[in-house]
């Protein structure tokens, strides 16, 4: 609305006194509990700190240990990357496809279907039902039906068998990942200007796929970028479902992610310096992926 470019800093600050007052309460909380923690973890990542004595500066030792010596961490990186590379794009694409299909429905079925897909992400700990579905006895849904159908002779120990842990976690994560970005896509699709489709039809767009590629996707670019940020952040920070479904530590660390590694050192061993190193690593990884994907998405359409 107004610009402060012409004014010297002091005068501008005086002129916008009220605006500063408005931003101040949030800014204080934001700086204290979001900016400062990031700064603190970067600082602490160079120290050895167990909360009882003062941080002891150790330079790059934590980073060296993390990358060179900590074998479990390598498993965690591998798992997290596999997880993020599979669930990130997949859930992103699913969010979009379902939003796109739902958008074709009239209002009431649309509202119902929106709820059907969005409900898993807001229903708290309902994902624990997967523990029941993949239970290792014959009462587990998966086992029971596979046995009933004669496909299995003995129940499979789904959640304690190394080979099944990751796939199950991925399925569960995808199931509950249609969250804020899904809503954002639905909303975005509803605001695409109808006149664009009419114009497109006149200009010779033949089918829905062309319509999708030439009109819908470019018009939704801002929502697509927002959704990407949300999905990337979520797919990298998975830990709770791993802790709850396959336990900690999971069999041969098959469900071990960077976040559970962080949980291990921060909440169980109280090696805060080392935990902060892990946090900084994950932080940089998320930021890097987000910025990369933003760059790619800007090229669409």
């Amino acid at each position, binding site marked *: 609305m107004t610009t402060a470019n012409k004014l010297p800093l002091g005068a501008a600050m005086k002129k916008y006194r009220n605006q500063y007052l408005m931003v101040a309460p949030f800014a204080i909380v934001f700086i204290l509990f979001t900016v400062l923690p990031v700064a603190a973890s970067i600082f602490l990542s160079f120290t050895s700190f167990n909360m009882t004595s003062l941080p002891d500066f150790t330079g790059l030792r934590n980073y060296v240990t993390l990358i060179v010596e900590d074998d479990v961490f390598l498993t965690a990186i591998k798992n997290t990357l596999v997880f993020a590379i599979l669930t990130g794009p997949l859930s992103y694409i699913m969010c979009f496809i379902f939003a796109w299909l739902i958008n074709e429905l009239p209002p009431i079925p649309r509202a119902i279907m929106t709820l059907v897909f969005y409900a898993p992400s807001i*229903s708290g700990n309902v994902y624990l039902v997967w523990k029941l579905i993949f239970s290792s006895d014959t009462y587990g849904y998966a086992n029971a039906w596979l046995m009933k159908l004669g496909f299995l002779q003995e129940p499979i120990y789904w959640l304690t068998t190394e080979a099944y842990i990751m796939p199950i976690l991925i399925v569960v994560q995808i199931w509950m990942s249609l969250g804020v970005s899904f809503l954002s896509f639905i909303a975005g699709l509803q605001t695409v200007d109808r006149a664009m489709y009419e114009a497109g039809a006149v200009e010779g767009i033949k089918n829905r796929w062309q319509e999708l590629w030439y009109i819908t996707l470019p018009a939704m670019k801002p929502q697509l970028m927002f959704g990407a940020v949300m999905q990337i952040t979520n797919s990298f920070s998975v830990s709770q479902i791993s802790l709850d479904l396959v336990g900690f530590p999971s069999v041969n660390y098959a469900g071990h992610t960077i976040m559970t590694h962080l949980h291990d050192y921060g909440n169980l061993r109280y090696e805060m310096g080392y935990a902060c190193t892990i946090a900084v690593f994950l932080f940089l990884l998320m930021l890097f992926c987000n910025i990369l994907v933003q760059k790619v998405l800007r090229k669409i359409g």
Partner: protein
Amino acid sequence: MAKKKKNLYQTKPDKISFLACALRLVIAFAAGWIAFYALSYGLIFLLQGELPRILKSILILIPFVTLFVAFIMLPNVQTFLRKRRLRTRRSLAVDIALMIFLGIFGIFSLFPLVYTVVNAFKPMSEIFIFPPKLTVDNPTLDNFLDLSFILEGFDIPLSRYLFNTLIITGLGTFGTVMLGSLAAFALAKYEFPGSRVMSQLIVYALMFSSAVTAIPNYLIMTYLGLVDTYWAVILTAVGGTLGLYLMKNFIGQIPDSLLEAATIDGAQEFTIYWKIIMPLCKPAWITLIILSFQQMWGTTGGVFIYSEELKPLSYVLSQLVSGGIARTGVSSAVSLIMMTVPVAVFVISQSNVIETMSTSGMKD
């Protein structure tokens, strides 16, 4: 030319009753369900080489497929599938395929939820039958009674946990909405030294999850003496930026001319905020309430609260859930209670949320 145009798009306006919509949705779901089963059965039998059974399942499938196709073919189905004034032609086959696809994934999404709801009403004898069923023969409230019985045995009454949750959820939600909307208004509508940096920081803060900062946050809370108080949970939530980000985008699309008019009439920024911005961005703050409610409702207090009498409801309930196989029924009852509230809240406020989300996009 005119004739060719007519072939290209449908111009028929659509009128369709709620009942018809609901009926069709039900049919679409039934067809999706059948297709889902047929696929899984088919795959299994194929692998076992029991051909007759595949034929059987195909036979079962045929009436449903016919039904589904018939429903797609209904004269005004075209308008059911798309509510557009003018659009390019759609092929019916692809329409059908896409609806089945949507149906299958709808079932996949709904199945665990339905399973939870059904389990919550199953008596013990039905939970442990082989094979497990998705229906309940003798629905009972035993699980809920058991739950209240277990909770009575606790040192701290349920009402205390509920009180904690209400305080945390209430204050956290209020804080997020108030602080968020004040800051969002100033950042969206005015440009002052530092406002750009702040806006940029907020976008960057979206790019990492708050879990990353949990440990240093814990240290800061310890330093401030806030650990083991409600504030530790409330303030970390208020410091999140998703709400502010959505609010800022929503306020950004309110025309400047409204504010200019108010400024000319002599209104101060706080008056503008309260009298003009807040009423206009009702959908946005309702959305913020929903999102922060969902987040706060599910919080277990984590490392920030360790006193038993300050723990929120979801903590004690999740303790019950992890009680093992004998508590299957009770834990389903718990899950049902925990999910009902946020789902109900979302159902009530869906249109507001969608309206806000339409401005959630990221600009370059």
